[in-house]
């Protein structure tokens, strides 16, 4: 009996020790996990014997690693950051991660977020500055099954419409109000979870969807373009700008040169990615294995349309179109995200570094 117990003790102890060791060993590299991830993607050049001092830099993504951010993954994988002397760390987002807070807290140096969301933070006193505009168009759609018969905004009356809220609802508010629909009385707005199950399950009539992600998920689930009706925010004239790059005033003041180099490398990455979305999808898929390759490639193709719309010069990726920013700010103010008109001057948005990087 005693022996058996002894054996058990040894077993338990062994388990504990091995687990603790794995905990320590896994937590140590975890802090450099992103660095090592970028190392594996930049296999061509060994990072250990770089002659010059590399500047460390982190970028906080708005959401999970996916082709939405392919430009940065491309630049990392092709070694563009390294060429500029930057040791880049790409931090994925998540449901409890807010990029504005991450950058303000100093966890990351640069962040990716939606313009409308950034405007809101700026209006609340957060000293953040937009420094590049990656997406030139809105990707927001309201999708419904064809049999529901929603072909114009007026058809939304009396329907159940999904939104993610948390700042993502304002294009829908704008769409409704621009068409004289009262969002409190004329229809029911409900929250969507991360999935598209609610619309597939017919629990809601119309769902918010990004062209590059959720719309693709619906197609992958077996529906075809003909089965779906789409209201596109760009066509409806209520588009708000999405993914942009931002920094804190404090950080950029000290790292102007570093940021320009980062931007130069990122623009190159985006150019490559938009020129060859298939390859970009593969790069993103290699960086994170869990989302299907097909989906990443689909997304990469859609993202390319947002970053370099028809007739847009790829050399100008990152260009800040002040008219579009102004429309975003106006809509944000008009439909209640902002309580006073946004301040759009050098303190909140600047093309200085973009011009420097594209010289």
């Amino acid at each position, binding site marked *: 009996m005693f022996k058996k117990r002894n054996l058990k003790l040894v077993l338990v102890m062994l388990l504990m020790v091995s687990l603790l060791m794995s905990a320590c060993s896994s937590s140590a590299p975890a802090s450099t996990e992103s660095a090592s991830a970028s190392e594996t993607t930049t296999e061509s050049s060994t990072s250990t014997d770089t002659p010059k001092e590399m500047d460390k830099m982190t970028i906080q993504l708005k959401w999970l690693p996916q082709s939405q951010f392919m430009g940065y993954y491309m630049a990392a994988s092709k070694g563009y950051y390294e060429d500029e002397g930057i040791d880049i760390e790409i931090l994925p987002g998540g*449901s409890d991660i*807010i990029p*504005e*807070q991450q950058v*303000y807290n100093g966890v990351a140096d640069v962040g990716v977020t939606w313009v409308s*969301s950034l405007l*809101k*933070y700026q209006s*609340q*006193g*957060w000293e953040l500055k937009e420094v590049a505009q990656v997406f030139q168009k809105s990707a927001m759609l309201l999708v419904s099954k064809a049999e529901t018969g929603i072909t114009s905004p007026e058809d939304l009356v009396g329907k159940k419409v*999904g939104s993610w*809220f*948390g*700042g993502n609802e304002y294009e829908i508010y704008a769409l409704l109000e621009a068409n004289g629909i009262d969002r409190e009385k004329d229809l029911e*707005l*409900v*929250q*969507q*979870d*991360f*999935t598209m*199950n*609610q619309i597939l*399950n017919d*629990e*809601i009539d119309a769902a918010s969807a990004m062209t590059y992600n959720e719309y693709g998920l619906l197609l992958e689930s077996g529906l075809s373009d003909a089965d779906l009706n789409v209201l596109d925010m760009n066509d409806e004239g209520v588009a708000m700008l999405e993914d942009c790059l931002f920094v804190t005033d404090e950080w950029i003041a000290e790292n102007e040169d570093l940021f320009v180099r980062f931007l130069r490398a990122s623009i190159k990455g985006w150019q490559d990615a938009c020129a060859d979305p298939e390859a970009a999808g593969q790069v993103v898929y290699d960086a994170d294995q869990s989302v299907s390759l097909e989906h990443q490639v689909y997304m990469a193709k859609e993202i390319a349309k947002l970053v370099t719309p028809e007739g847009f010069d790829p050399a100008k990726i990152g260009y800040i179109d002040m008219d579009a920013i102004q429309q975003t700010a106006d809509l944000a103010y008009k439909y209640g*995200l902002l309580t006073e008109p946004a301040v759009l001057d050098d303190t909140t948005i600047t093309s200085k570094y973009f011009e420097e990087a594209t010289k």
Partner: protein
Amino acid sequence: MMNKVKNILWPLLFGIAFLALWQMGYVHKVLDLKPFQLPVPLEIVQTLHANLPKAIKDCGVTLSGAFIGMMIGSAIGFMIAVIATIFPKWGYGGLIIITAFNAMPIVALSPIMNLYFSTGMAQKIGVVTIVCMAAMAMNAYSGLNTLKPYSMDLMHSVAAERWVIFKKLRLPNCMPNVFTAFKINVAASIIAAIISEYFATSTAGLGFGIKDNLRKAEMAMGWSYIVVASLAGVLIYIVILLLERNVIKWHASQR
């Protein structure tokens, strides 16, 4: 009587002192925070005051879901503990299943429940039920089986039937544990209800208010919802405490 006053006075004094330090900016100084990152109490109170009717309504939605879910979950947990006690050989496996449920994160449970229930309330109750089962099952089982030495022998010596042993010995013996479980479940059920509302098909509830406002940088509004949740949690906890005092007067912990 003196004790009762002390019970309320001490935490209250501490709370007021803390709130004062927070209001005067010392907390922000120590933690290196800006007021727009973490609002000061007065701002939170003002925001809450301006939004009171809606906050109360949202609180009602969340609490009713949390309460119903906690009751169902605790009942199931208790049943499983009883079954595991009556049939020690076969019932014990049930406890392990419960553990498996307890390791499923709410973030995963919520979308699963969304598939089964189309209303936010039903989804919430489903999530809370699962979250609350384990604490009750573990505690009740422990209480039903951790008997005082010789008490069982005494029962056997008077040739008590199993049912009598259960009613007279095991059941009273597990009451303190049941209350311990309730104390854990009060906190767990409210936070589970809140997190399930992040993903619910509705726009009501404290969880929606917290997520929506914190994401939109409406920190004061977001924190005012957190304050409401905290107050509700403490209130329910006090109710449980009073119940405990009346039900298990005889127990050492109450003297």
